[in-house]
């Protein structure tokens, strides 16, 4: 289970970081969402992975730690609110700059090719 869990966190984080580095706001938001999933799972694992254990110390030989679950809940709520804000902000960016480039750059026409330049020169 540990291996599967670690692989899942790794895959989520890698895809998240990759998408975060893209130039359009939509992939960036997706990237941040995936990254926060990865982070939440990681935080959950910091209390050790155990199934069927009681969250109370002293009742059994091993126990499951309830605190990381509380931390994850807080992180989920905050992450959710931030993502919602970011979605609205990037829509605003789209409306203000008429494209969804993260730098707000306007699309420029591709430079004319050499052949075209020669043709127009003649």
């Amino acid at each position, binding site marked *: 289970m540990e291996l599967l869990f670690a692989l899942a966190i790794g895959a989520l984080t890698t895809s998240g970081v990759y998408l975060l580095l893209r130039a359009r*706001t939509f992939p960036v938001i997706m990237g941040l969402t995936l990254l926060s999933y990865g*982070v*939440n799972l990681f*935080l959950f694992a*910091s209390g050790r992975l155990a199934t069927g254990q009681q969250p109370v110390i002293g009742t059994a030989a091993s126990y499951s730690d309830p605190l*990381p679950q509380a931390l994850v809940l807080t992180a989920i709520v905050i992450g959710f609110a931030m993502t919602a804000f970011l979605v609205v902000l990037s829509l605003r960016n789209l409306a203000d700059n008429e494209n969804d480039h*993260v730098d707000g750059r306007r699309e420029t026409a591709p430079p004319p090719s050499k052949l075209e330049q020669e043709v127009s020169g003649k």
Partner: protein
Amino acid sequence: MTHWLIAPILIPLLGGILQVFMGYAPISLRRTLAIATTVLMLVSAVVLLALATDGSYRVYAFGNWQPPFGIVLVLDRLAALMLVLTAVLGLFCHIYASGGADEGNRQFHGLFLFQLMGLNIAFLTGDLFNLFVAFEVLLIASYGLLMHGGGSSRTVAGLHYVVLNLAGSALFLISVGMIYSVTGTLNMADLAVKIPQVTGNNLNLVKAGGMMLLVVFGLKAAILPLCFWLPKAYARATAPVAALFAVMTKVGIYAIVRIYPLMFGDDAGELANLGMDWLFPLALVTLSMGVIGALGADNLKTLVAWQVIISVGTLLAPIALGSEAGLSAALFYLVSTTWTVAALFLVSELVASQRGAAGDSIVTAPKMHHRTFLSVLFLIGAVAAAGLPPLSGFFGKLLILQSVEPGAEMAWLWGVLLIGGFLTLIAYSRAGSIVFWWNIDGHLETPEPMNNRVAISTGILTCLTMLIVVLAGPLSDFTRATAEQVYDNQGYINILQTPVHIPQNPLVGEIN
């Protein structure tokens, strides 16, 4: 257990909630209530400062849970100093904002108060995860404030700022998870006990967590590889917001000062002084980068934004060396530079409002109105920022220079700080002489009116640097005592033994 500790958090919280529901009330009523809230917050911060001067730690345990099991607020000299610094700054920025900058967004005052609340939580909390929550509270308010006023350039700068800080939050959570997985606690005092006991493979986990935490705080404080978002965002923000943001980078520095000497201090065994040998060269490079940016700035606000980065470098260099004298000098400079930079942001906005289309660009333009008043304020701010005598920036830098022990570090710090100071002076002289002296003939026909609130708040905030000079003795005594307290970990660890108040007749007994 004194209940005063919760006041700087509750007052802006309740005031902010009131503002949320009063979005459609007359603006004069909203302004009066909002400024009254900030004044109350300042009063509570001063009360806490008076409490903290006796040098003891005061603990406020939420829900009466004995630390380390519950979240605690901890008041010491450092926290009290930061609270008063923020409250004074917040009050003047708020008065400035109520001079007209708060129009156009009904929730401006609410966001402003929530931002102050987030700052106060960050300064008071004694719990690592609660520090994360405080960062998020102040950040989400700052996202809204940064957008205040609208405009497409603000949207882009804001987008970068939000994305960067969200990535920073993810890193913060990962490092918190790493440290918790090994130590099983997030209470800072308990971490200071547990981290020196970590052995074996776990050591590397804590080390990685600690270093990642430094990256997060470095992002907040704008240390060099992580500082390029700052000039753009700060220069685009409305003046009172940019001025309030002057304290935001100081939150990162505060977090470094709070966490590293305590958790990774001299007693931390193998993890002692983690990351500090990285911090010193980075601080010097940050300082140099800030100076280069200031020399290249093409408008006043960008110039001041790079000044924020210069002061971050100046503050972190002595902190990284880890001496009590260094920290004391840095704290003295921190008070001075925060107020000065904030005042310069306000002055830049006033200059822009009197120059018509030229705005705050460093170009020749028709003579501005109120030129004498504004140029004197700019002169005071620039002299304090560049660190010339007789203003407080000079004393701050002098204390920093004195605090270094002779050696290679001294040569580097003296060299970078003095040459950097000289070049900053050139940047300010160039900006000031072009903006105030190189005028083309004629007057601007219709300047924006300058009202009393704006002029008075900017004037007082600028002149606080003189107040610091007058009170330099008591202030440096206080920062020295603060530095002593920060490096004395045993005092902080002892808060684990604080008896929390237990009711005489527990409810359970009565029901039975």
